[in-house]
């Protein structure tokens, strides 16, 4: 049980997907303009991560043992289907959210965090529940980073930033400072 908790905490803050593995940076900079949208994209991605984790475990256990060279192809096809599924669900249940997420919803397919999760889970040999804990922690960490970044950017919009700094450079520097703050969690695991 305790190893599940550690996997969760580690993926959530210590080895945060976005801020220390640099996974899922496109939405991190692309959709972090508004807090509400950022939060919802985080939740949608977490859901995809969860499906991917289960699918990865199934594939690894029952199919890919004999065909390791098909791993990447199999993963990417599964992820694309999972995203398509989530897209349909969101379109049915919340058309407003569907419109707000726009292009970034199908782009979850090419979100490195999703494929990264499948690859890390494979290379670390996680079992079923460990995979679930990893997906939840990773998704939570991604959402946390998105929400923090969106809040910072909403604040920064009201402050007096020179025009030349605004844009990607400013967001990168913000992310750098955020990542430094997250380094403070590094000591948690070594004990």
């Amino acid at each position, binding site marked *: 049980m305790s190893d599940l908790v550690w996997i969760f905490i580690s993926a959530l803050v210590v080895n945060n997907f976005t801020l220390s593995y640099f996974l899922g940076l496109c939405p991190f900079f692309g959709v972090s303009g508004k807090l509400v949208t950022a939060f919802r994209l985080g939740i949608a991605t977490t859901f995809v991560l969860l499906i991917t984790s289960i699918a990865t475990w199934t594939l690894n256990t029952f199919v890919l043992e004999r065909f390791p060279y098909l791993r990447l192809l199999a993963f990417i096809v599964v992820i694309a289907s999972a995203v398509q599924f989530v897209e349909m669900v969101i379109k049915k249940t919340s058309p407003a959210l569907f419109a707000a997420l726009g292009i970034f919803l199908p782009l979850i397919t*090419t979100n490195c965090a999703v494929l990264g999760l499948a690859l890390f889970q494979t290379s670390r040999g996680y079992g079923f529940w460990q995979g679930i804990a990893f997906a939840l922690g990773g998704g939570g960490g991604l959402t946390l980073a998105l929400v923090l970044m969106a809040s910072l950017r909403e604040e920064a919009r009201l402050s007096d930033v020179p025009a030349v700094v605004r844009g*990607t450079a400013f967001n990168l520097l913000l992310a750098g400072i955020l990542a430094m703050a997250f380094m403070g969690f590094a000591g948690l695991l070594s004990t």
Partner: protein
Amino acid sequence: MTTTTPPADPSRAYQEFVKGIWKENPAFVQVLGMCPTLAVTNSAINALAMGSATMVVLMCSSLLISLIGRFVPNQVRISTYVVVIATLVTVVDFTLQALAPAVHKELGAFLALIVVNCLILGRAEAFAAKNPPGLAVLDALGMGIGFTFALSCLGMLREVLGNGSLFGFDLFGPSFEPWVVMVLPPGGFLVLGVILLLFSVFGTRKAS
């Protein structure tokens, strides 16, 4: 551009090749493919290896997609591209594992993550599918060199600042106090941020 375009004249080919290196540099100007840009540039060698691997995949995928582009139905084109790219990345992954196991181990999962590098899918969709194979390969080569160049710049800067070495060779001797944060994750964000800042400063100065 239609598929009936006559063989490109040399000046156009030159233009398509050069644009990716500086004017439309994928990492510095278009800010595509951020994950590898930041994740593996903690040393110059890793950055160079990652850049070259991406360039090989990009060139092969551009060539293939330019050849098959007109036969692929519109609805399934993205999935087709992704499958082509994933196959090529698998090939590069295994090749590198055989030729340079040490580098392969360093890059780890990030090598496989070339599949989801937006740069490659972006070039396939925006250029290769609509242009003849020759131009597509030139475009890919230019973009690949631009990407490798950007990655190497970041990698060298971060290695010098954070480790006091370049390509593994010690530069400053024992009196150098390394700026460790630069080889850690925050350093990636900060160095790229500062570089983009400089670009924007010079850009506005030029414009005014």
